[in-house]
């Protein structure tokens, strides 16, 4: 017998405890990622316990990567290159926002006093691990509450919207990608200014959900974050519409979206530190 033998009555008692524990976990875990207090301390405790294991493998990977890089480049050049890359990425993010804001200015000529929104405070972060489930799309980053990361903060990259912070630990956080089936975001079609709801799917694609039949959307339209809601600032690129199924019998339709961000190759991201209200 693998475990200490228990008599039949104790066995049933343990089984009952297991069932109660399992049901408690099952029903008290809401699917927007919020855990109740009973679960949170277990989650944080385990994060603490598994942290050295993650660090070990992350450290090993870093060692291999750094050794390879060291053969290719001098350290000083590498550091300078990294710094420039970071600055370029940050500037690309700003440039992207500027392009959208500029287009918005053109459309609303009466709002000549429209001022440029204050610069976003971006915290660079690195993806250290990815979700192990086939059905979920998320990643763990190397920035947490110690660096000012909070749950619900937007996460972007130079290419566009990445997702939002879902769980926060001391030095790490979990980012839920926009391609996750639980993600939803208000967007706006750049050409027609049609408001849309963007979300992920089980396949890891992005879709426009609940489109009205006469919604003015076309293949090739670019979708940006609208700023509606409390997560994402306006003006970040979400993706391009690549397919729009038009069913004459359907009241609401869906459309397929090509994400602006290449999630498979994503390594460096930015957490938008301030809330949306402060940027508007």
């Amino acid at each position, binding site marked *: *017998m*693998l*475990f200490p033998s*228990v008599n039949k009555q104790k*066995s049933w008692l*343990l*089984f009952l*405890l*297991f*069932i109660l*524990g*399992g*049901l*408690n*976990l*099952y*029903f*008290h*875990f809401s*699917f927007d*990622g919020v855990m109740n207090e009973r*679960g949170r301390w*277990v*989650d944080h405790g*385990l*994060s603490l316990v*598994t942290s050295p*294991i*993650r660090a*070990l*493998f*992350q450290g090993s*990977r870093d060692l291999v990567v750094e050794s390879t890089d060291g053969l290719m480049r001098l350290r000083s050049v590498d550091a300078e290159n990294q710094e420039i890359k970071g600055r370029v990425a940050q500037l690309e993010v700003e440039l992207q926002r500027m392009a959208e804001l500029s287009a918005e200015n053109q459309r609303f000529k009466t709002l000549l006093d429209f001022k440029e929104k204050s610069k976003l405070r971006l915290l660079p972060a690195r993806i*250290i*691990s*990815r*979700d*192990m*489930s*086939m*059905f*979920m799309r*998320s990643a*763990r980053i190397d920035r947490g509450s110690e660096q000012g990361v909070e749950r619900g903060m937007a996460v972007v990259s130079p290419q566009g919207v990445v997702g939002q912070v*879902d769980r926060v630990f001391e030095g790490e956080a*979990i980012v*839920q990608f926009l391609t*996750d*089936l*639980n993600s939803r975001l208000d967007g706006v079609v750049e050409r027609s200014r049609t408001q849309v709801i963007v*979300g992920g*799917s*089980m*396949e890891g694609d992005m879709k426009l959900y609940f489109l009205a039949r006469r919604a003015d959307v076309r293949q090739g339209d670019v979708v940006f974050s609208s700023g509606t809601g409390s997560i994402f600032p306006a003006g970040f690129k979400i993706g391009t519409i690549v397919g729009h199924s038009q069913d004459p019998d359907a009241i609401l339709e869906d459309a397929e979206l090509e994400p602006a961000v290449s*999630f*498979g*190759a994503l*390594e460096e991201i930015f957490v938008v530190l301030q809330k949306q209200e402060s940027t508007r």
Partner: protein
Amino acid sequence: MSLSIGRSETEKDPWFSSVIVVLLWTCWLAFFSASTAFESFRMPMTGIVLLWAARYWSWVWAGLAFIIMAWIYHQWSQIPPGLFALSCFATFLALRLFISQVEIQSLASYSIGLALSFLMLEILQWSFLGRVLPEVSFSWSVMFWMLVSVVAQFTLGLVFYGSLRTTSA
């Protein structure tokens, strides 16, 4: 061909080896999740632990162990821990049924057990998710990558058991 999964039936206390299996699984999660090599499919290798559990763990202790495993897994996945634990336990029961009918001694029976374990766990998680999220439905694309994942895990699982056999021989 006779195989042994790391211990003989006369071995008295496989506690240590069971803890090692769970620890190896945890290390594998840490290792694989840090990799960006396979973006389209993932290989959590939980099926190996479940086959081990079906062979050596009592159903009561397995249930408790699955809750612990679910919380460990939650460090690397957004899958709700309760859903994962229930999927594990259901797969475990199916494997117990399989083992009660087929004695796992040959490579063929190991292979069937492994394939059953990997496939059933994925399908159950998919099914349970579909019960709570309306967006989850059948998809050929997901089915394809799920099968790719199962085949990859199955292959790795055979290598794992093969290495155990070599070590224990």
